[in-house]
């Protein structure tokens, strides 16, 4: 996806300190706003990171006992899920952009649908897998022995978890690769074809090298999701670093060590982003001239079309059709039984939709304005602001929630007369979403502005428009597509969000995610399927709208 591809286009170069200080001494209002906004958005994270240097009372014990296991599990999941997601994402993206076969148009949009499925919901559906494997395990125990039985259990469970997470997260890679192939692949692919390369050779000699930056960018997002996942790994009994944070904090009451773990997770993600940048090297997306001419898709013969069809169907089936099919089945069983959940989710639904929708719009507008402010004058200060403001995406939701509580609890305690009390209000949740997800619309706005180029904005400025007027008149209308896409993606993410919402919500506040969580806590799977299905449905609609705005090439077919 574009926003990730440009994650760090703003490369800081060691410019002369003199210019830096001159800018500092004469800050214009935009620079000031960018700086102040970055500070505000980073405060909750700072409140957490401050603990990084301190070792809590349990730190030594953690390093000695559980930390190695958390690290191993995290590494196994990161590698396994990334491989699965790459396998599921790259080939279908290639197939739907440069080939033609029955079902291609359907797959082109349907393949992003697994993003609508929260991993904790997918987990409780897929946990049926280990349960279904019990007869096989019993057979192993009676015929092979107890050690083989114990090993087989672990292999099945880890395997299923990796397959499931890969199948839910591959769309990040699929979207990035699809964009890469359709935007700049045309000339190269057609040249390769003219020179007589067979389709397989084109894939390995042109597509894979071409998609490398997209693959890396998509994989970076997948890895961040894996590292930050709490629900699914807990369900499958595979404790990772993130679970370690909760265990240390809640079980041992050592908040300092827990937050230090969180700091390590964030550092790991930051390193990942640097590696991503290095791996991407100098590769940049430059839209080739004349790219508005669509690529001529190669029609596949019957046998190959069937293979292509299966290659696209498989990830979709594992990541969406099967889990959603089970959710539909369970919901139906629940709603038709006399002891079904009463349909009290109407309020959760509308409340969740309003909250997610409003927040998504506001955050996207702020991000666009922020990206515009940074682009106005790209000095090192603003570039670092740009990077810092996206830090929340690398932070576990529960940790941000605590940071937000610390900041606003402190503010409330100052008892400033004109300021309302923030504790326990919906504002805190909205602000926490802003901190957590700001990176998404920021990167998408930035990518959109980069593609737009500076000339239009400069013309407007030369003709005497103020920056803000330029933003309203030029950037905002022209960026409508990417911004709406960002808002929709944000909307889906907020709809799915759980840990942060749980901790910060005001009284009597249920969203679909929290309703589903309560029912899952009572282990009422069929009942839990009802709100879960609603999340998926709302998310799927959002994603399809996003897909339309994200790929104009697809929408005017």
């Amino acid at each position, binding site marked *: 996806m574009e926003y990730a591809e440009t994650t760090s286009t703003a490369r800081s170069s060691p410019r002369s300190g003199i210019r830096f200080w001159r800018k500092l001494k004469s800050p214009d209002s935009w620079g000031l706003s960018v700086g102040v906004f970055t500070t505000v958005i980073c405060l909750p994270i700072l409140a957490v990171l401050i603990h990084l240097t301190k070792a809590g009372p349990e730190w030594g014990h953690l390093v000695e006992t559980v930390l190695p296991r958390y690290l191993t599990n995290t590494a196994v999941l990161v590698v396994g899920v990334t491989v699965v997601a790459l396998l599921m994402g790259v080939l279908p993206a290639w197939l739907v952009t440069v080939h033609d076969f029955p079902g291609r148009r359907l797959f082109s949009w349907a393949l992003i649908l697994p993003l609508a499925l929260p991993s904790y919901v997918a987990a409780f559906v897929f946990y049926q897998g280990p349960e279904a494997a019990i007869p096989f395990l019993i057979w192993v125990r009676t015929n092979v022995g107890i050690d083989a039985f114990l090993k087989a259990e*672990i292999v099945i469970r880890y395997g299923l978890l990796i397959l499931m997470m890969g199948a839910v997260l591959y769309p990040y890679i699929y979207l990035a690769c699809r964009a890469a192939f359709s935007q700049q692949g045309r000339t190269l692919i057609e040249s390769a074809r003219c020179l007589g390369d067979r389709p397989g050779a084109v894939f390995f000699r042109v597509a894979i090298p071409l998609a490398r930056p997209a693959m890396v960018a998509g994989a970076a997002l997948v890895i961040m999701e894996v590292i930050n996942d709490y629900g699914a790994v807990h369900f499958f009994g595979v404790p990772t670093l993130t679970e370690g944070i909760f265990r240390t904090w809640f079980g041992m009451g050592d908040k300092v060590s827990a937050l230090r773990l969180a700091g390590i997770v964030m550092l790991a993600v930051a390193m990942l982003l640097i590696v991503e940048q290095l791996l991407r090297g100098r590769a940049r997306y430059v839209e080739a001239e004349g790219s508005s001419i669509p690529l001529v898709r190669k029609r596949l013969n019957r046998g190959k079309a069937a293979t292509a069809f299966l290659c696209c169907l498989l990830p979709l089936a594992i990541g969406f059709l099967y889990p959603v099919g089970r959710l539909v089945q369970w919901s139906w069983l629940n709603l038709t039984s006399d002891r079904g959940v009463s349909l009290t989710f109407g309020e959760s639904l509308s409340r969740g939709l309003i909250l997610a929708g409003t927040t998504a719009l506001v955050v996207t507008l702020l991000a666009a304005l922020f990206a515009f402010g940074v682009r106005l004058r790209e000095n090192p200060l603003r570039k670092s602001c740009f990077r810092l403001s996206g830090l929340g995406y690398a932070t576990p939701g529960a940790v941000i929630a605590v940071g937000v509580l610390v900041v606003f609890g402190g503010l409330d305690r100052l008892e400033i007369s004109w300021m309302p009390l923030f504790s326990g209000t919906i504002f805190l949740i909205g602000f926490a979403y802003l901190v957590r997800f700001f990176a998404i619309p920021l990167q998408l706005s930035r990518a959109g502005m980069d593609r737009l180029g500076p000339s239009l904005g400069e013309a407007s400025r030369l003709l005497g428009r103020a920056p803000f007027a330029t933003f309203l008149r030029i950037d905002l209308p022209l960026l409508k597509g990417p911004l709406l896409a960002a808002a929709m993606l944000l909307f889906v993410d907020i709809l799915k969000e759980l840990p942060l919402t749980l901790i910060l919500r005001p009284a009597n506040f249920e969203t679909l995610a929290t309703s589903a969580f309560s029912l899952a806590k009572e282990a009422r799977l069929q009942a839990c399927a009802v709100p879960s299905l609603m999340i998926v449905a709302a998310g799927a609609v959002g994603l399809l709208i996003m897909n339309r705005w994200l790929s104009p090439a697809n929408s005017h077919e």
Partner: protein
Amino acid sequence: MIKTLSTLLIFGAALQAFAETKEVTLYTQRHYAFDETVHEKLLKEKGIKVNVVKASADELIARLEEEGENTPADLFMTADGAGLDRAQKAGLLQPITSPAVIDLVPATLKDPENHWVAVTNRARVIIYSKDRVKPEELSTYEDLADPKWRGRIVIRSSSNSYNQSLMTTIIAANGEEKAGGWAAAVRKNMARPPQGSDRDQIRAVAAGLADLAVANTYYVGLLETSEEPADREAAAAVGLYFPNQEGRGTHVNISGIGVVKGSEKAALAEEVIAFLLSEEVQASYPENTFEYPVNPAAPWSENQERWGKFKADPVPLSTLGELNAEAVRLFNRAGWE
């Protein structure tokens, strides 16, 4: 956009209008749908509206700490004694004063200084496969470490507070060293690494993956009356055994409640607690959540009577909080995930 904003404004105005009625705010760890029924009854009979925030006990404790005296919370409720003890040690609770509340609850089920009282309780018991285990083979929690159970036990993760509380009682009874050895031996006897909820453990025993599980009593009740036939079949395939009856007794834990320090509605909050402890409400817990009532006047449910009376470990619940971190450390060393 304007439409959503105006909806929010109307929503806010509606909240303002509500502020005139008698209201208390409850931070609770309990996720039971039945608690909402109790709150509706409270509104109907006493005219008190309960505003609810649900999250895990320690998340709520963190929130109370950061909100300080500006917290909207009046009441704090957990599904585990250790959580209440931690809240009290953090200075977040104030003593309950109403004699009507204090005198109703047996001494073992409340804080010595009345910072909190139990509302319900339950036992953590051994669940066995009726096909493959005879009850005579069972005796104590300690016996679960015996090598004869190799590959035959399922039990959930040690990050779960029920297991942490159980572990504190094993430390209290046998000392740290033996408790650590016990955890390591039980871990070796597991049929699979810890995963899932108590309900999943019972299902695994019913499906034949393991022969023994450790679970809270009310899970058996929930399975027996589940809307899903597979759950009811699972409940029928297992038996329920109260361990350590010859010795200190079975480990009992509570759901309990306390008044948040600095609450301006302490009297109202205590009225809510008194309501939760009233005979009528207490009698409804066994029938719906299958927890035991703490009010001695309230009768047990049919299945609780069938499970039978049992001797409870008298270790004070405040011990659970004190030894909790030690319990987690021992679990970590034992490799019990």
